[in-house]
C-alpha cells in the first residue's frame, strides 16, 4: 500500500502509466474503432496525400490510406515488438545473469566476457545486419533486437545477484543445504525482481525507439503492416509539401517512448530508495 501511495503522488509516473494503458487499450480495441479499418491493406490511390480534414484527421498517405488509422494500428505492432524483444532478451539474459552472478568464478567471467562482446557491437549495426540476413518479417526484427538487448539484462541481473548473494538469508539457505538452482530461482530471483522490472520498463521504451529506427531504415516490419518508423521514412519523398505524413507517426513514437520512460523513472524512484530523494 505504501508503494501505491508513493506512486499515486508521482504525477509524472502516473502520466506515463496513463499513456501506456492508453496504448494497450488502442492495441486491443484499435482494430474496432479506427475510422478506416481496411486501410491497413487497401490502397485508395485516388485519395492520396490529402491534408488533415474532418474525414481524415491526420490526412492520408501516398497510398491514400488514413494516417490516423495506421498510426493507431501501428501501436499494437510497436508494443508487440517491444514486448517480444523484452521477453526474449529476459529469457536469455535473466537466467544467464543469475547463474553467472551466483556461481561467479570462471563461468561468471566467461558469461561477462561474452556480454562484453555483444555490448561492444554497435547494436544498431548488428540489428541491421541481422534483420537483412534474416529477411524481413516481424520475427527477424525481434530476433535482431533481442540479440543486441539481452546483454543489458544479463549485466544488470549479474550485478544484482552478486549483491543479493551476500545477503544473510542466502548463507542460511546454503548452510541448510538448499540446492543452488532452488536458491537462485526461488529465492534470489524474487529478491532482485524490482530492478528487473525497472529495467524492463525503461527497456521497452528503448526497444520501441530502436524498432522505429529499423523501420525507418526499411528493415523492420514489412509493408503494408502499419509501422511508425517506416511511415516516417516514406514521408520524406513528399516532405516540403506533405508535413502531416512525418508529424503524426513521429508524435506516436514520442508518446510511447515517453510513457515508458516516465513510468520507468517513477518505478525506479519507488523501488530504489537510494535514488528516491534525488528526484
Amino acid at each position, binding site marked *: 500500500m505504501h508503494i501505491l501511495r508513493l506512486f499515486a503522488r508521482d504525477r509524472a509516473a502516473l502520466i506515463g502509466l496513463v499513456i501506456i494503458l492508453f496504448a494497450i487499450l488502442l492495441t486491443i480495441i484499435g482494430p474496432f474503432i479506427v475510422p478506416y479499418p481496411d486501410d491497413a491493406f487497401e490502397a485508395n490511390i485516388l485519395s492520396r496525400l490529402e491534408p488533415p480534414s474532418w474525414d481524415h484527421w491526420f490526412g492520408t498517405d501516398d497510398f491514400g490510406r488514413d494516417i490516423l488509422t495506421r498510426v493507431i494500428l501501428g501501436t499494437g505492432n510497436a508494443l508487440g515488438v517491444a514486448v517480444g524483444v523484452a521477453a526474449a532478451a529476459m529469457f536469455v539474459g535473466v537466467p544467464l545473469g543469475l547463474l553467472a552472478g551466483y556461481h561467479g568464478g570462471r563461468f561468471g567471467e566467461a558469461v561477462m566476457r561474452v556480454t562484453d*562482446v555483444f555490448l561492444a557491437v*554497435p547494436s544498431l549495426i548488428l540489428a541491421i*545486419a541481422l534483420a537483412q540476413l534474416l529477411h524481413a518479417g516481424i520475427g527477424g526484427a525481434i530476433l535482431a533486437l533481442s540479440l543486441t538487448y539481452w546483454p543489458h539484462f544479463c549485466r544488470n541481473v549479474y550485478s544484482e545477484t552478486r549483491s543479493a548473494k551476500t545477503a544473510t538469508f542466502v548463507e542460511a539457505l546454503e548452510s541448510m543445504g538448499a540446492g543452488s538452482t532452488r536458491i537462485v530461482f526461488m529465492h534470489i530471483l524474487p529478491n532482485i525482481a524490482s530492478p528487473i522490472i525497472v529495467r524492463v520498463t525503461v527497456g521497452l*521504451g528503448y526497444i520501441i525507439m530502436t524498432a522505429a529506427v529499423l523501420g*525507418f*531504415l526499411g528493415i523492420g516490419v514489412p509493408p503494408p503492416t502499419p509501422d511508425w518508423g517506416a511511415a516516417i521514412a516514406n*514521408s520524406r519523398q513528399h516532405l516540403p509539401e506533405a508535413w502531416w505524413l512525418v508529424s503524426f507517426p513521429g508524435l506516436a513514437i514520442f508518446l510511447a517512448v515517453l510513457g515508458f520512460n516516465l513510468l520507468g523513472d517513477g518505478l525506479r524512484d519507488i523501488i530504489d530508495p537510494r535514488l528516491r*530523494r534525488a528526484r
Partner: protein
Amino acid sequence: MSLFIVRRLLLAIPALFGLVLLTFILIHAVPGDPAAVLAGDQATPQQIQALREHYGFDRPILEQFIRYVSQLASGSLGVSYMTQRQISTEIIERMPATFELTLFAMTLATAIGIPLGVISAYFHNRWLDHVLRIISIGGLAIASFWLAIMLQFTFSMELDLLPVHGRLSQGLTPPPFVTGMIVIDSLMAGRLDLFRDAFAHLILPGFALAVAPLATIMRFTRAAVLSTLRREYVFYERAVGYPRLVLMGKYVLRNSLVTPVTQIGLLLGAILGSAVVIEAIFDWPGLGSYAVLSIATADYQATLAVVLIVGCVYALINILVDLVHAAVDPRILEQL
C-alpha cells in the same frame, strides 16, 4: 599508468576476437554472397561460380574464418568486394567524418547537458528544475531520425537557414588533410570561410544526434550533483563560505563528474549507432553510411571491418573513461 593502459589494451584483444567471430558467424549464417552482384546482370551461372571460387566463397566457413583472422593478424582489413580498394583506406577516409559529427554532438551534449544538470540540481524541486526535467525526459523520447527530418524540413527546406546535406558546400575544396575533420583542418589551415561553411553543415546533424545524449547527461549530472550536495564536505564548504559559483562550478561539479563521464563513454558507443541513421539522412560520408552500404551490398569484409573498428573505438573509449576518472579522482589514480 602506462602499464594499466597496456594491460587494458591486451585485455581488449580476446573481446575483439570474440566480436569478429560472432559477426563472422552471423554474416555467414545464411547463404548468399556478393558473387552474384559482382558478376553483373548478364552473368551465366558458370561465371558466378568461377567468381565465387576466386574469392573463396565456396570454402568451408571455418577455413574462411581462419583466412580472415590471419589476414587481420597480418594487419590488413582486406579489400572491399564492391570498390576493390583497401578497406583500411576507405575507413580512414570516412572515419574522420564520423568522428567530427559524433565528437561535435557529444561536445554539444556535454557542454549543454552538464550545466543544465547542475542548474537543475541547484534549483532542486523548484520550477526551473521541473521545466528542465520535462525537457530532458522529452529529449529522451524523441526519435533522432524524426528530429533530424523535422530539423531538415524546418531549417533547410522552409527557412533556408542551414545546409540540407553533406559536410561542405558544393564547389568548396576541403582543407589539407590533417585530422580529416574539416572544422579542425580548416582552422589549422587558417581558412575561416571553410570553417564557417563546415560548421554550418555540422549544426543540424550534430544537434539531432546530440539531443538524446544531452538529455541523458543532464539527468545523470543532476542526480550526481544532488547526491554530491548531500555530502558532508559540501556542507563544510558552505560553512566556510565558498562563494556559490565557485562551490557549484568547481567543487561540486568535479565531485559529480564521475557518473556523467561514465555515461559519456557509454553514450559515445551508442551515438556511433545513432550516427548510422543521421548520416543517412544528411548524406554524411561517415562510417555509419559505410556500414549500411556494406550491408546492403553484402560487402562482408567491409561490414566486419566496421564492426571491428567500432569495437576498438568502444574499447578505447572505455580505457579513456577510466583515465578520465583517474584524472578527476586522485584515489582512483592511485589504484591504476
